[in-house]
């Protein structure tokens, strides 16, 4: 029987693939008595250094008029919007995999940020949000006094 080893980088690929399948759900109507769109959304990465919190998410093909980024209560980041796809008429579809429809994600940030200084840039289909931490959230060096 042939043994198949799955080294670590391949596992990431598998998780990504399963997550991609879950993400396909965005914008699909739920089956059930309430025919609403379930708001789910794209995957988000958040990282920080001493002065800033960064967030990034992949949103290819977005019309910026349909994208909204909000920072509320200092540490809640909301990314919501709708991705529309032009559906040309008179074509035969062979495959349809890309996500479209409404999405909404709300996440808690690791620190309170200064909402007035938040910058969001959309480049090559990637949304990157830079959020400087509020003065109170930055680490403060405390001098130790002897005696």
């Amino acid at each position, binding site marked *: 029987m*042939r043994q*198949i080893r799955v080294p670590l*980088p*391949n596992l*990431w*690929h598998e998780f*990504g*693939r399963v*997550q*991609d399948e879950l993400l396909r759900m965005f914008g699909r109507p739920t089956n059930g008595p309430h025919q609403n769109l379930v708001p789910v959304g794209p*995957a*988000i*990465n*958040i*990282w*920080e*250094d001493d002065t*800033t*919190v*960064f967030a*990034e998410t*992949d*949103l*290819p*093909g*977005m019309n910026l008029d349909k994208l909204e980024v909000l920072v509320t209560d200092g540490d809640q980041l909301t990314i919501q919007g709708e991705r529309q*796809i032009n559906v*040309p008429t*008179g*074509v*035969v*579809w*062979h*495959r*349809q*995999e*890309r*996500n479209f429809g409404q999405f909404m994600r709300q*996440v808690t*940030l*690791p620190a309170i940020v200064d909402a007035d200084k938040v910058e969001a840039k*959309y480049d*090559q*289909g*990637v949304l990157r949000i830079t959020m400087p931490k509020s003065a109170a959230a930055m680490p403060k060096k405390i001098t130790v006094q002897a005696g």
Partner: protein
Amino acid sequence: MADTTIERKEAGEIKSSVDTPDRGVTHTPRVDILETDDELLLFVDLPGVHAKDLDIRFENGELALTGRRAAHYPGKPWMWEFEPGSFYRAFRVTEQIAADKINADLKNGVLTVRLPKVEAAKPRRIAVKGE
């Protein structure tokens, strides 16, 4: 057959020769494929890939896309839901395509590839003669 499947999967993991900060992860990009009378249209989601880091080849009826993603994440992660990595996908194209007229356009992370059919492959209307 088992052997062929494994080979194809490994072929999908291309370690690019360009130095990338990602951990060698290669994703399969999502694609929409449409066909009109005149051409095949591919829409590929390739977020984070610049045109200079995108490689498109059409050889022996197979279209292969390789995209390297520049990634820079200074600091420490707090929430990490996806691993940005390179992209690879290949398609077998069964229509007869005019290879010299293939056109590709990358905008906002979406790659549009137009593959025009050769004249012989376009549907032809047949006039019906009758009384």
